């Protein structure tokens, strides 16, 4: 009888708390939809990377090849290989802008001007002797070819270091393929018995890079990002809501009214916990469903493992939220503290950007967060289809940190009751 009554009380508190979100448009946005907002913005910005779409890369070419130069004392004007290089760039699906001069940032119509305005990300300057050098037209007095290297100048945008690195990688890859094709042609012109020797000489080391089969599918950034955003769910739906759950009741006076009813403080806590957990799961479902519908992500569904991981991660988020909610003076203060914690944390949990690109102290900090462990576990389970055993270290970490934070949350909650 007493148990039945307690269960009724717990669910009445949980339902009332949940309605507080469901009937408040601002709360719905910040608690349930804000992580989705992030996913959509970042998903559309970076999400399709990994599919090799080079058309997104805008390249400027300044092709001086074909301009008159003096070679071996005679005037030469040959643009064959320079033109082939530009055409090959276009064939490789780069978006190519052609300029007659590199210029400077203040002269409209030049490559430097467009780099400074973000119109192109890289400019390639092809020298006037590009064809002559690559076709062995430099000779000595006896007519023997003088080996002469062709030199390309690349100019990148220093104001966008990350973007520049990605563009450089693509252009280096393209140049490497172009050189391979050139070598094939040149080597085909030397005596057959020397060709293999020449090939080794030209390319003493060959490297092939392949993506390891970690998932059984071709993966894009978004395929990692969607499971990773469950970490955001913990921060925005779990931590933020739990942070105001008790503080808002205390500010309104409803908490005091619950305490003077024949309801134990643990019953109130249980009701709040169930509501917070329901909001976390609801937000997770919204995120995953949106990933599937908007970005067509293909995920693996080990539901028990996913549900357990979210629960354990949720324990940390709600525990931390409970500490904030209990110690904060009022709802407004609790909300501010929660935002102050969750906004920076979302960049350290590996949901959007891998921790490996961060400085070492940031990596250590990020690795210590239970939310990061949820991101790792979800990516391993949902993207790589790894078995549950593979994420046991993350599960254990989340269990321990979740219990510690939740117990601290309960202690803070008791202290807050004494302060009433």
């Amino acid at each position, binding site marked *: 009888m007493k148990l039945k009554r307690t269960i009724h009380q717990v669910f009445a508190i949980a339902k009332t708390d949940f309605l507080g979100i469901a009937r408040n448009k601002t709360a719905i946005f910040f608690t349930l939809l804000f992580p989705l907002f992030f996913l959509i913005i970042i998903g559309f910005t970076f999400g399709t990377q990994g599919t090799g779409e080079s058309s997104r890369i805008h390249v400027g070419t300044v092709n001086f090849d074909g301009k008159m130069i003096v070679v071996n004392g005679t005037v030469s004007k040959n643009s064959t290989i320079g033109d082939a290089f530009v055409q090959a760039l276009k064939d490789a699906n780069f978006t190519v802008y052609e300029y007659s001069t590199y210029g400077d940032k203040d002269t409209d119509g030049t490559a430097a001007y467009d780099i400074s305005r973000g119109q192109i990300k890289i400019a390639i300057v092809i020298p006037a002797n590009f064809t002559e050098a690559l076709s062995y037209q430099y000779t000595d007095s006896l007519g023997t070819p003088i080996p002469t290297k062709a030199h390309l100048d690349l100019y990148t945008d220093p104001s966008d270091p990350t973007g520049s690195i990605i563009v450089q990688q693509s252009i280096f890859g393209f140049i490497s393929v172009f050189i391979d094709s050139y070598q094939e042609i040149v080597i085909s012109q030397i005596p057959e018995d020397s060709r293999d020797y020449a090939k080794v000489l030209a390319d003493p080391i060959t490297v092939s890079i392949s993506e390891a089969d970690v998932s059984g599918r071709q993966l894009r950034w978004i395929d990692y990002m969607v499971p990773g955003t469950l970490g955001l769910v913990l921060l925005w739906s779990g931590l933020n809501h739990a942070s105001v759950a008790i503080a808002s009741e205390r500010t309104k006076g409803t908490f005091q009214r619950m305490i003077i*009813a024949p309801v134990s403080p643990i019953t109130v806590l249980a009701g709040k916990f169930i509501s917070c957990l329901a909001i976390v799961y609801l937000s997770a479902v919204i995120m995953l469903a949106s990933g599937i519908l908007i970005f067509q992500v293909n995920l693996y569904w080990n539901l028990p493992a996913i549900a357990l991981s979210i629960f354990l991660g949720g324990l940390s988020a709600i525990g931390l939220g409970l500490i904030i909610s209990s110690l904060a003076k009022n709802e407004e203060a609790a909300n501010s503290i929660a935002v102050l914690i969750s906004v920076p944390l979302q960049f350290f949990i590996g949901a959007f950007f891998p921790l490996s690109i961060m400085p070492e102290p940031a990596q250590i900090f990020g690795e210590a967060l239970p939310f990061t462990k949820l991101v790792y576990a979800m990516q391993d389970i949902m993207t790589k289809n790894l078995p549950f055993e593979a994420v046991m270290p993350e599960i254990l970490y989340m269990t321990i940190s979740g219990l510690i934070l939740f117990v601290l949350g309960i202690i803070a909650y008791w202290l807050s009751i004494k302060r009433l």
Partner: protein
Amino acid sequence: MNLNDIEVNSITRRFEDTVAVDNVSMNVARGELFGLLGPNGAGKSTLTKMLCGMINPTSGTIKVGGYNIQDYPMKVKELLGVVPQDIVLYDYMNARENLTFFGKLYGLSGGKLRNRIEELLKFTQLDEKAVKRHISTYSGGMKRRINIAAALLHEPQVILLDEPTAGLDPKNKLALWEMIRTLNKEGKTIMLTTHMMDEAEELCNQVAIMDKGKIIALGSPRQLTKKVKMENIITILPDKITSKLMEATQKIAGVKSSYRAYDENEKIETLKIITERAEDILPDIVSAISSVGTKILSVELSRVTLEDVFILLTGRSLREEEEPL
């Protein structure tokens, strides 16, 4: 045998160096409508918080319905219906949803809860249209009626009301007084804290006046006014109040006491003279005032109120901002 629903025995509550409630003892008999009066900081809120189990006393015991609150906190909470001064309701829910929630906290469910909610909605005189609207759309009076109804769901024997009519217009105030009287007629024991003297005099059959953590007077409103042995008060509005005027009035034979009082509603300062035989000494008062060169603008004769009793006992006014429960 006179059964007490509230028994407070030598209660003291300290907050570090401050004694908020100092060795207070009082009883509230079953069916009584008891008023607890006092200014801000008198200790009323602390005493009420101890009565409803929100905080524990440093020493002493409190019994509600015969149960010691420290030994049987849940039992006492079931006997008590507490109406806080502030509107403590969920404004995103309607009246029925709010009452359902608070009913479930008190262990009600199913048909019993539904029936009780309908009874209380009738009692609050809210129409069906209003009942379906969110509390945020209610007027102050409507909110206050639901605020009270939320404390009555479990049919408590003892009801604690903290400033139940604060901020209400006269019409809503009278309606709430009627609700309180009805509850009392049904046999409920009611204790209300208020700083409105007219409210206490109108509703309560027993009153305790608290000041600086102690009960300085206890009894019926009539007993309290008699206790200071003064029946009448003469309120004079002079053109100016000077020390000479105060001295002159105090020297008149038959004047027990005289003091300056500020009327907040009229924004005027008056001279109050307390006496047992107002009619006899009124001519002497008029001539004494004229003798110091002061003109009389108006004279009013009335009975001593609880406000006057409090001022006489403490030298201070009761009308101060109250701290909500």
